[in-house]
């Protein structure tokens, strides 16, 4: 078993014209780990994702992936290294079918269209969207689009997947399905960081939880520890 | 001697720059309010020029006297364009938005050519004519009056946007559409108003320059490019920015034409557009 962390974030900060969205955040993620990332609205969760996935250049701090410094690298190279993401506000390719959406992801590793199609079909089956493969992505429901984004991200063969509120707006059955999906991603050996407001969806499956408040990490521990952490309770109640 | 020439050049640049500012404020207002670049903006100016021309040719009304009428007419054109076309593409993909206003540009040019022939027309013997001499500097009275008018209208627009209820609502929409909607401002009404005012500004500019500029269906092409430069330099959506940028562009155009050669003045101004787009896309005073 590889003990070196998959991802090591050290003192990461991000400011927008004076507004500090992330401050001095440090944590590690291990291979195949499921980590929940929670915090009140505006705590800086999406900003952190954008930094990890190369969309923002952090103002301070370092990000290392598999021991390599990737601070400030581009989204393309982050994807190539094995960091995949979904978007909080879905961004499917609306003029393409569900299958074609996933094919674009698969083409990162293999440019052949035929192979990409096979891989796409496999990932669509993995997230349970096989029956919608030929439907234009714009005709899918929002929850289907979120799953499509997961399939698309998985098709890039990531080592780490960043899921931004994939359970928002789902009914209890769907939340359970989504939790199972995350667990199956873990079984594939892929680590995941999951931003979620739906606690029922994340608490049962997460190995560890990170809590952000006003851009800073205020807690890091097992779901049970987090649930009793006074700082976390204060952050949520005081919100 | 050289100082005199330089001064002469600066005055000419200032005068034309103020006109550019007036054309551009309408464009920037529309963009600020709804993120749509109006490729047909030069055609509003063209319509303003023709309105003046016909007022003069048919009713012997001087362009300066006809200005209020030109403004009203173009306001109506702007609102009609908004209601018939723009309203339907607000949520369309950007590509459709470009094509819609681009189509409008060609439509208006085509209509002008169809009804008024492609000939260049001039308005002879207008109320203001002749030259004005100020020390060693000489410039056309029509140009001077046009520049004064441009300052007046831009100033009026500024006052409207900052000191009146309706104007503040419009300005608020331009600054933050979401917030304005939350404050209960009727977006549709503001959009239509922006188009009306934007078109009217371009129309007035057309009326002001009709006395010294040839009038033809494609005259807008000259101005839209420069208006783009002004809007980009001033920062999309900023009226004050457009005003300053208009003057800067006018000065650069005339100065560049003087130093490099008049045939290159448009190329110089367009290079400025590229430089600003690439170096500081938000312009001098634009929102990020």
């Amino acid at each position, binding site marked *: 078993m590889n003990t070196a962390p998959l991802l090591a974030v050290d003192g990461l900060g991000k400011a927008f014209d004076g507004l500090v969205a992330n401050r001095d955040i440090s944590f590690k993620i291990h291979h195949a780990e499921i980590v929940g990332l929670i915090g009140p609205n505006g705590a800086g969760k999406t900003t952190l994702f954008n930094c990890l996935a190369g969309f923002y250049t952090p103002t301070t701090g370092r990000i290392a992936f598999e021991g390599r410094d990737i601070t400030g690298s581009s989204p393309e190279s982050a994807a190539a290294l094995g960091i995949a993401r979904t978007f909080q506000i879905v961004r499917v390719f609306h003029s393409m079918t569900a299958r074609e959406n996933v094919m674009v992801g698969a083409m990162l590793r293999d440019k052949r269209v035929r192979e990409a199609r096979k891989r796409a079909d496999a990932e669509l089956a993995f997230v349970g969207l096989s029956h919608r493969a030929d439907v234009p992505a714009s005709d899918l429901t929002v929850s289907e689009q979120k799953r499509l984004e997961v399939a698309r991200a998985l098709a890039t063969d990531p080592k780490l997947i960043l899921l931004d509120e994939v359970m928002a707006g789902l009914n209890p059955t769907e939340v359970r399905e989504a939790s199972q999906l995350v667990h199956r991603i873990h079984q594939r050996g892929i680590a995941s960081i999951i931003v979620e407001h739906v606690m029922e969806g994340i608490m049962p499956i997460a190995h560890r939880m990170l809590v952000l408040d006003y851009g800073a990490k205020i807690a890091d521990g097992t779901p049970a520890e987090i649930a009793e952490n006074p700082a976390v309770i204060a952050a949520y109640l005081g919100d | 001697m050289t100082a005199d020439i330089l001064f002469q050049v600066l005055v000419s640049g200032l005068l034309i720059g103020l006109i550019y500012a007036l054309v551009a404020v309408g464009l920037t207002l529309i963009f600020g309010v709804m993120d749509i670049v109006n490729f047909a903006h030069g055609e509003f100016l063209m319509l303003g020029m023709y309105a003046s021309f016909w007022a003069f040719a048919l009713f012997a009304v001087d362009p300066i006297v006809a200005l209020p009428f030109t403004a009203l007419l173009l306001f109506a054109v702007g609102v009609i364009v908004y209601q018939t076309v723009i309203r339907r593409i607000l949520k369309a993909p950007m590509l459709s938005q470009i094509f819609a206003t681009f189509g409008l540009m060609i439509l208006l040019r085509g209509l002008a050519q169809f009804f008024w022939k492609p000939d260049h027309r001039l308005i002879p013997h207008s109320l203001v004519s002749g030259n004005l001499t100020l020390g060693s500097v000489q410039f056309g009275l029509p140009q001077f009056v046009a520049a004064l008018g441009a300052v007046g209208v831009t100033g009026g627009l500024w006052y409207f946007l900052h000191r009146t209820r309706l104007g503040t609502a419009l300005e608020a929409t331009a600054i933050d559409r979401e917030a304005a909607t939350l404050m209960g401002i009727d977006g549709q009404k503001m959009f239509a108003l922006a188009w009306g005012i934007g078109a009217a500004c371009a129309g007035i500019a057309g009326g002001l320059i009709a006395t010294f500029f040839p009038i033809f269906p494609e005259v807008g092409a000259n101005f839209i490019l420069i208006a783009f430069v002004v809007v980009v330099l001033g920062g999309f959506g900023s009226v004050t920015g457009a005003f300053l940028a208009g003057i800067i562009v006018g000065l650069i155009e005339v100065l560049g034409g003087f130093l490099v050669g008049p045939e290159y003045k448009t190329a110089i101004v*367009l290079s400025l557009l590229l430089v600003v787009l690439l170096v500081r896309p938000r312009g001098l005073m634009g929102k990020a």
Partner: protein
Amino acid sequence: MSERTIPTPVKAFGALALLALAALLPLVVTEPSQQNFLILILMGAQLGVAWNIVGGYAGQVSLGHAVFYGIGAYTSTMLLLTLGLSPWVGALAGGGVSVLFALAMGWPCFRLKGHYFAMATIAVAEIVQILVTNSEFLEGAVGLSLPMDQSGWGVLIFLSKLPYYYVILGLLVLTVLTAWAIERSHIGYYFRAIKDEPEAARALGVSLTRYKLIALSVSAFLTALGGSFYAQKEMFIDPGSVLAGAISIKIALIAILGGVGTLLGPVLGAAVLITIEEYSRTLFGSTGSGTDMIIYAAMIILVAVFSPSGVLGLLGDLRRFLPGARSKGPDMADKMEIRP
């Protein structure tokens, strides 16, 4: 997009039949002026298909394509006039120069999105037109004439229209095949991804700059070939005929009318646009009464307002207005959303 609705063999057969028809057409249409009309349509179609690669598939609207057209025309003509180089080689050289120009221009300009990119392309094309108009080396506004003393396939100058017809048909086929190959490969998927959601494409490892540059370069190369063809056919070029803003507009219009991002849409677009142009010219005189502009502007506006997929799409969309037709799918309301 609904690529599997028509089986591939049927499509291939259809394409071959269409090609055969086009090849045989001049046997029926023998009147030179009518052959010229067909040539104009093919020229327009070729430019439209080429524009579509960057403007349609990749969604980067260029309103300055005349610059590539002009580079093609001027390069092959200058090489012929100064070095006596065959236009076959000259056209390829023009394509090469055009690609270099596309790279130099695209590298900085592709950081700009949407409207800004469109503006930058207008500015670049306009600047080049001004520079060429004032260039002594290129004979400025006077223009360049091709020598009249030779003809034949080597110099690509013909006394009749027919050979020009087959040359431009060949160029159109080459252009369509290029677009088709792109459409079917990963590049075509990447183009559409970039057009739909650039940020999401990046998250999947797609380099926006690289693929936009590929789109612009291929398009520029093919457009330059079209420019060289124009020079050979007209035997005279000047900034007004190959570099003017009106040409950029026309190229974009053809693709827009026919259907942005469709393989053969621009061919239809060209047929429609050139027909309108020629008819209004015969009806209202050669000065251009503006009727052609009015008609195609009205069509563009209709297309933009009602159907972003062009005339082809518009015809298909008419079904929507029939009673009992299903309502429009979820529209792009989220386009208005402000994204992080």
